């Protein structure tokens, strides 16, 4: 890019340098205070220094709303762009990303995030801390599971997950009440009830942790090594309303099928603290296949009616 760019065109609002073979976007861009849309698709960006340093603090960093870097060679989300607090739309589709940094949550204004066509294997729960996100595209990646925290994205209207490696979804997904589009095709979703999900019995540490929590044994940070204090803070509550127990790492993973529109059965993963517990979905304890295949009404019926428009393709 020419060095005099910001002097010649100080009022520049939209810049499209797509398909120009650029290997870096330089500091010439930083002083453009009115630039809100930068399109740089199909270039050779991706190496260190692809984006100018100090992007977040520069005039450009405050004005930029739309950034399209799809079709480049980024192997990681460039840290330079994480300071763009005003950014509303980010596309890194068709790059070489292997993951999403938890710092993605710093893009507080993000509404549109396109990460389709990469090599992403997992999603950080911090992604759920984006308060305005309404369109999330994660299709054509290598994602094996969705963190349940993603259900906190209350404003999500469209979620694209097709062509990944998902076998089930977290049951919290039905809490996404504004979701209108959900694509799941091309995932090896479990179709039939898996009878023997292995249960690893809890360790002594886990059993001690559970006792401390359920009996409210008082403790202070000075009483325990730091790692155990942290461990105790990670207790999860058993979803069985009659149980009230907690678990740490050892839990029963149980797949329940939830009907949508009576046509599409989504396998949702429930975590229970022991095989004797039952999930909120059913009132009786379950051990038989037919039980779990038929009891989908309670939890699902309300959410299912909301999600009836969802195209599950």
């Amino acid at each position, binding site marked *: 890019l020419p060095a005099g760019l910001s002097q010649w065109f100080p009022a520049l609002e939209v810049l499209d340098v797509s398909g120009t073979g650029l290997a870096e976007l330089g500091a010439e861009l930083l002083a453009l205070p009115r630039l809100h849309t930068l399109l740089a698709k199909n270039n050779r960006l991706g190496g260190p220094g692809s984006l100018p340093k100090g992007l977040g603090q520069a005039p450009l960093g405050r004005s930029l709303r739309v950034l399209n870097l*799809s079709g480049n060679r980024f192997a990681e989300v460039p840290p330079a762009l994480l300071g763009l607090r005003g950014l509303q739309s980010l596309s890194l589709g068709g790059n070489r990303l292997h993951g999403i940094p938890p710092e993605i949550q710093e893009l507080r204004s993000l509404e549109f995030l396109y990460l389709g066509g990469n090599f992403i294997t997992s999603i950080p729960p911090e992604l759920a801390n984006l308060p305005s996100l309404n369109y999330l*595209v994660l299709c*054509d990646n290598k994602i094996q599971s969705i963190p349940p925290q993603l259900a906190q994205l209350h404003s999500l209207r469209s979620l694209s997950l097709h062509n990944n490696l998902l076998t089930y979804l977290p049951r919290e997904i039905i809490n996404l009440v504004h979701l209108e589009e959900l694509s799941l095709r091309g995932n090896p979703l479990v179709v039939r009830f898996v009878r023997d999900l292995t249960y690893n019995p809890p360790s002594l540490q886990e059993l001690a942790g559970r006792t401390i929590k359920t009996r409210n044994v008082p403790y202070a940070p000075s009483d325990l090594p730091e790692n155990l204090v942290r461990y105790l803070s990670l207790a999860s509550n058993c979803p069985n309303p009659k149980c009230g127990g907690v678990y740490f790492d050892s839990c029963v993973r149980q797949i329940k099928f939830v009907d949508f529109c009576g*046509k599409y059965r989504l396998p949702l993963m429930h975590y229970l603290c022991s095989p004797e517990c039952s999930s909120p979905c059913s009132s009786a304890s379950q051990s038989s296949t037919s039980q779990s295949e038929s009891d989908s009404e309670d939890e699902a019926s309300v959410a299912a009616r909301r999600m009836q428009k969802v195209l599950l*393709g």
Partner: protein
Amino acid sequence: MEQPVQTETWKAQSLEELVRILHRIFAEDKVSVEEVQALMESYESNPEEWLQYAKFDQYRYTRNLVDNGNGKFNLMILCWGEGHGSSIHDHTDSHCFMKILQGNLKETLFEWPEKKGNGEMAKKSERVLRENQCAYINDSIGLHRVENISHTESAVSLHLYSPPFDSCNTFDQRTGHKHKVKMTFYSQFGERTLC
């Protein structure tokens, strides 16, 4: 035994001319699929002529009505953002022509599921349609899914359906179960329709 229809070789020089010729063809009692397909392919896409109909939606593909063919056909423009795709669907006993105006679309053909459909639907074939190519399908050929698999480019396609229809069945690829859906227009004649 049907009489073969006199097929002409048309060349539509503009979108307007394409519509005019379509009206002429569909005014007849018999219409030849090959003739319509060749006509659609003959039109060289010129964005200036159809940009007013190409309204994109952030979340999913849109259907924008261009002409309602005196009730004989519907001509519409579909706009596909990056990664947008359709479900597997049928065509309610109508003829469906699909011409690419911009970008590329992948078409995957499926067999009709068995009556007691409870297994994964069988894929017949797939292909990527390039700019100006025109594909044809009807229920006797099978079902299809259409998607823009590009993560960097949007796609625009021109569709002709005859007779017009406003509902069809969508199919769950994993089980073959079908579900009737109503189709709506995002815009008509260049004006956004709010519903």
